[in-house]
């Protein structure tokens, strides 16, 4: 299976939101698969974290969910970014960048 890296705390929502922003409406499996592929199998999202996170995002109103047909004609629940979700994504991205650059500074001066 290769080495698995824990998803850094607090970034799960950001990853999901970014995925939805990139892919457009997608189902849970698709989101997990996409993140895994893009990250070259480094980031693997546990189903035990993914689905509770999606529920949380529904509560917050960042995504909406709708049942639709997949390409091979099965019913799946598709999550779609809302404007509030997009705003949240931008917020998290900028915060994440700030944190990363701060961490980078600390590491470089060390």
């Amino acid at each position: 299976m290769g080495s698995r890296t824990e998803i850094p705390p607090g970034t799960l929502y950001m990853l999901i939101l970014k995925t939805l922003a990139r892919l457009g409406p997608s189902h849970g499996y698709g989101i997990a698969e996409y993140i895994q592929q893009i990250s070259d199998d480094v980031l693997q999202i546990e189903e035990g974290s993914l689905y509770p996170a999606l529920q949380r995002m529904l509560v917050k109103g960042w995504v909406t969910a709708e049942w639709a047909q997949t390409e091979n004609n099965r019913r799946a629940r598709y999550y779609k970014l809302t404007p509030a979700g997009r705003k949240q994504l931008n917020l998290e991205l900028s915060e994440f960048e700030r944190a990363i650059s701060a961490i980078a500074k600390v590491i470089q001066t060390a």
Partner: protein
Amino acid sequence: MRELWRRLGYLWNRSRFERDLDEELRFHADRLEEAHGSRDAARRKFGNATILKDASREMWGWTSLERLLKDVRYAFRQLAANPGFAAVAILSLALGIGANTAIFTLIDHVMLRLLPVSHPEELMVIRDLRSYPQFEQVRDRNQVFSAVIGTHYMPEMEVKIEGGPTGRAAGEMVSGNYFPVLGVGAAIGRTILPEDDRAAESGPVAVISNGYWKRVFGGSPDVLGKKIQVRSGRSDMGTSGLDVYDNGRRGSYDGAVLTIVGVAASDFYGVTAGRSVDIWMPITMQPAVMPGRPFLAQPNAVWVNILARRKPGVSEDAARASMVVVWRQILTDAEGALITEARKREIASRVLLVESGEKGFGKVRRDFSQPLLVLMTVVGLVLLIACLNIANLQLARATARRREIGVRLSLGAGRPRLIRQLLTESLVLALAGGAAGVMVAFAGARLLIAMLATIEGSITIPFEMDFRTLGFTAAVSVATGILFGLAPALRATRISLAETMKDAGRGATSNGRTGKVLVAAQIAVSLLLLIGASLFLRTLFNLKARDVGYNPDGLVLLRVDPVSAGYRGDEVGRRMQLLLDRVRALPGVREATFSENGLFSGSESQELMYNIEGFTPHADEDRRAYFDQVGPQYFTHVGIPILLGRDMNERDLPGAPRVAVINETMANFYFPGVNPIGKHFSPDKQIRLEIVGVVRDVQDHGLRDKPVRRFYVSYFQPIDGITTANFEIRPLGNAASLMAALRNTVQSLDRNLAISSINLERDLMDADVVPERLIATLSSFFGALAVLLAAIGLYGVMSYSVARRTNEIGIRMALGAGRPRVILMILREVAVLLAAGGIAGTAAAFASTRFIKGFLFGLAPIDLISFLAAAALLAAVAGIAGYLPARRASKIDPMIALRYE
């Protein structure tokens, strides 16, 4: 906000949510399976779906609520499965909580609540009644109050509503600043205002309470402008000195005609806790409201309650100190320039009792707070017994449910989760009991108030279940739920798994012990209650059996108000003699007489000071006595034995030598071993009384009273203004049939002569022991309830004990133990419990009965008879409760019992 909506939407659509989640996860698992090629690998990857679902659900934030609902639903199923248990528990809780709530409601209204006015903490009240001129002086001369209010409360005012019949209502005359200073507004119309009390009888207006508006006028706004006629005779007042009243006959004796100008704010009931007012009117309407008693300018009539608001920055102590000084100045100035040195010294020792007024005037509080606290203790103990009882039943059930609990523990339910579950059951039970208790409380409070009704009226409180009462009920319910639920829950869940998987019956000895401790505690508390009940019952019995010195049976008391009919001076006596002649002529009357104060009629003279011939007093106290002014043949007709000399008669008239009859106590005090007949004493420089008779001491005003020095003068030679007349009438046959004839006789003499009351002497005496009867009745009822609950507890514990020992008993019987032996064995257990509880209860009684000493009469707090009677009753009931399981034990068939394992 929108988030909340989404969450609520989740609650609404929970089953759809579950379906969606299930399908979504199935889809995911399928895709995994396709990707990994094998079902097992996919499942490994996927992990625990239940945990995942729980976590997803939790995101919506309703988990704890859902769990609670589940617990509650489970609790209801458990209770429904044991309807007998649930019924006993809820019923006993309903009685316990209901009784507590009912008495709390009264205590709250009478003792705890602040007045519903603005800034009640600034208010102060003057304890005693004052005259109107004194009120004006206090108002105008003090420096510590920003406003001074005068009031007069009339519990039984006659009210005639335009075009309606005459009814009774509680009235209050108030100074014009009353509503503005208290910050109480009008719901409709206006309040009484300072303009309304500028001059005597200048403001014929009335404001009614919200309750009276609803009750009598159906809440109609048409009430404004309606006219009512109000009239009041005697109420709470004091008068002294001759000819208090004006001599000129006034035009109308019908009372004051007032126009309703407003309805007071809905929560406002007046300024005396426990006394609700229906109708307010300006205090300057007093001469019209009380015909014949124009008191506004009268310095000798005290009838005004004074309430004041402190100025900002003035402390209560400062106000009190300042008012004492002002009060002495007022008294000194009233004496004028000719004040004697002795009078000055006397005034220098006077104080004015100024109290905190945040709860209003304290009359009802002073009268009722002690009985109410005793009752609160009684019902508190009853609730405690109910709790112990239910805890015990819970324990027994927990034992029966050991398997269920064991299984759930072994399936991984956490102990906290199970404790919470069991506690939820207790709370559901307690809240159900509390809800039923609210109904009991409603009825109970009404019953209580009815039982507290005396001749002077009862506590009147606005009857609305409010948040304070409901909050109290809820708090008590939750507290009792935890009290009786926690220990059994903790016990029930502390079990070893291995043990419970075996037969539930064994190894449960410790549970049995807890149950026994609980039962012993119940026995102790119920013994305490029974001892209290028998003390109160014996007190009531002693009071009722008290020899008052004459025969009160059948005696009828008719009270009339000659003042309100306009009679003055000697005319009062002449008219009353006329009425007496007519009453005596009635066919149903055997004998009749009259007196001013009557017997047990609630009015009493003040103590009068006098100089007595041949007696040197050591202190002022030595030359004071109570007195009464009595009609012809008073002692003979009432039935008071004359020891020396003669009775009053028709010749003791104005102008004839003034005479007095004294009682035994007075005779023995002043004339030990000497015949007092012919001796003289003087209550006044102008008045010299010759003693013409000595009579036996009697109880004429209170059953608890000790004999006091008392003398009697002729009604026709009054030494104090006559304000009333009480006719003591002995009927030939049935008293009830006489009542109508008496009313007609009075009416035929003078249509204006008001009948204040007609009562049987026995009823008046009963009214004198109202608190005692209330406490005795309720403590007996609750004592019996407590014993019943304790008996149920004892029966339960013993039945359980017998069931547990079936095997052992079987063996004993197989080895030759006879039935009596088995019964004795079980009864010995009962006896141990009874002894343990009995000793604890007796000890508690020894320690606590002295707190109710003030309520007892004719017996000591440690009264052997009461203690023994209580113990015997408890032992008898407990004996029966214990004998039934013992008999069942003796009927055990050894063969079956041995096969029992």
